[in-house]
């Protein structure tokens, strides 16, 4: 048996005499922990609610009783101070009219007149505890408290889903930023013949990252659902989020034209300069100047084209990682929404993921 069976909660409104009753019960129930206040998450095996015999219970006392007895059926109500309040039986009957299902006894725990009278309470409490130990535990008592628990469960599910949402989107952002930085560094060093290879490498890495994030998401959702089977919604393929790489063709053509002009100009200038200095070598100077001009043109074209492609690749990498992020975000949101509605449906049906496994409610209504 766990700890929660070993506590008896003695509670009551101010001046009701709960402390005296608790003191006496502590002496008589050595095997239980008799407390006047529960720790967080603690559930008592039985509750002894103490009210004074001075006057019938009021609404705030009833609320306290409801709250104390929310998690157990084993409740005994003790009407205290019966040694001085001669009309305690009338008070008890008035109270009993309100809570007929509970066991009611009169006690004098710290009597000013006569003897201590708690034996009836001890008897009732022992009987209740024995009965309680035999029965499987009924976790919830009234419809109201069931409703409260359901609401609490729904709220807990919701908050878990929201937390998952925040964590997943954070993770997606971190992965995408890391990938983008990495790929941009690579794009800055790519050579002309490596462009195609680089493009296919980018695709591969994006697909891998998407698969990794998907696996994380699935793992988290499985933990969140805890037994509830979740359907995977159909989503557009990842490819549709990723833009294709377009080499900068028009820019390349323009580069060719401008570089040719630049080469021609350079060749003419050099040719005329050398022809001035050595007129006898003119044919050789013309040939050399032409060759130099052509070489310069080719080098400028190649360099400009490489730089343009690197810039285009850089832009493309940014777009691809943004596309990846959008795809994963959408996927995560859709799946979390599915999970939330499935869990809410389970909670509303009165089943609890933290109790023994149960079947998934039919979800055929979804298309």
């Amino acid at each position, binding site marked *: 048996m766990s700890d929660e069976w070993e506590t008896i909660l003695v509670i009551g409104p*101010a*001046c009701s005499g709960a402390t005296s009753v608790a003191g006496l019960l502590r002496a008589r129930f050595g095997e239980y922990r008799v407390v006047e206040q529960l720790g967080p998450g603690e559930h008592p095996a039985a509750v002894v609610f103490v009210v004074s015999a*001075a*006057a019938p219970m*009021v*609404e705030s006392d009833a609320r306290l009783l409801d709250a104390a007895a929310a998690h157990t059926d084993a409740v005994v109500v003790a009407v205290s*101070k019966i040694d*001085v309040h*001669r009309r305690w039986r009338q008070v008890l009957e008035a109270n009993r009219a309100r809570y007929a299902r509970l066991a009611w006894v009169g006690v004098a725990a710290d009597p*000013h007149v006569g003897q201590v009278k708690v034996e009836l309470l001890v008897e009732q409490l022992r009987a209740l505890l024995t009965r309680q130990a035999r029965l499987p535990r009924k976790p919830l008592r009234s419809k109201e408290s069931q409703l409260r628990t359901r609401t609490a469960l729904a709220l807990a599910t919701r908050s878990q889903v929201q937390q998952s949402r925040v964590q997943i989107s954070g993770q997606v952002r971190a992965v995408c930023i890391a990938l983008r930085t990495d790929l941009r560094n690579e794009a800055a060093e790519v050579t002309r013949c490596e462009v195609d290879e680089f493009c296919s490498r980018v695709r591969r890495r994006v697909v891998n990252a998407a698969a990794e994030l998907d696996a994380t998401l699935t793992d988290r959702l499985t933990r969140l659902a805890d037994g509830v089977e979740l359907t995977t919604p159909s989503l557009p393929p990842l490819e549709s989020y990723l833009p294709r790489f377009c080499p900068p063709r028009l820019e390349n053509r323009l580069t060719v034209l401008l570089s040719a002009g630049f080469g021609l100009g350079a060749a003419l200038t050099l040719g005329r300069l050398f022809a001035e200095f050595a007129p006898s070598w003119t044919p050789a100077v013309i040939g050399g100047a032409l060759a130099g001009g052509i070489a310069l043109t080719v080098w400028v074209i190649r360099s400009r084209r490489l730089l343009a492609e690197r810039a285009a690749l850089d832009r493309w990498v940014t777009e691809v990682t943004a596309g990846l992020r959008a795809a994963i975000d959408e996927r995560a949101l859709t799946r979390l929404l599915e999970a939330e509605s499935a869990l809410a449906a389970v909670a509303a049906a009165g089943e609890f993921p933290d109790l023994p496994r149960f079947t998934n409610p039919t979800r055929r209504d979804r298309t």
Partner: protein
Amino acid sequence: MADDLLADLLDEVSAPVRVGVTGRPGAGRGTVRRALRGAGAAVVDRGEPAEIDVYVFCETFTREDIAALSAARRPIVAVLNKADLTCLRGDGPMVIAAQRCRELQRRAGVPTRPLAALLAVAASPGGLDRSIVEALGNVTVEPARLMPAVCRRLLAELDLFGIAVASTAVSGGADPVALAALLRTVSGVEAVLDEIERASAPIRYRRLVGTLAGMAEHAVGPRGARVAEFLASDAVVLARMAAAEKVVGRSDGCTDHLRRAIHWQRYASGPVAALHRACGTDISRGALRLWVRAGGCPESIP
């Protein structure tokens, strides 16, 4: 004429303040009603309009009590009933109940007094008959010779603490009158009545001011001159002053009337409620009249 008017005025103003008894069910509202009525308060029946409330509770304030006390629109006095059963040890129940009342009064901000309503009912005229007094004489005799029916009656009418107090007094030779006086003292009803009286001072003051305002409507025309004369007379001004002094709870008895007038005028112009401002003005005016009567000479400011 002035005397007649004054007599009417006095009748109207000194009419008892109507007390309504409310409170926690089962706390003994009925007994408190009888006790206060027996002690001379003008207690109205349930549902009848009252001017002041007595809120009956027992043991301590519940949330409902606090809510009811803080929502009260009329002056209210909280009464801890069944004070005779608070604790039958130590200094005795009434002393312990009085201590508890002081704490509760701090908490709720409402005058709170203990009361053993059963004893107060017994102390009221006709509360104790001869057979009860005789039975009380027999309680202390060893062995006690009491019929069960008498026993039950004693318990119902005096309860444990009451029987203890009364039988000790009877065996000490107290006659029924002295016994009633003792029970009245012990029950705490005097303190409750004092508290009601204190809480009804604003009601009486408002009554006086309202009546005077009603009379002022007749103080016009040739026949109204005498009424106007009456309203401005020392008697009226001093009556207003006396009623106002009860509201502010201070009768300093200062003989330097001019200083007193200045003090209350300052008080009235200070940060106080409208009622207290009116009271301050009335006291100041009364003090000036007393000053003139004592030979003071008003001078006009140039």
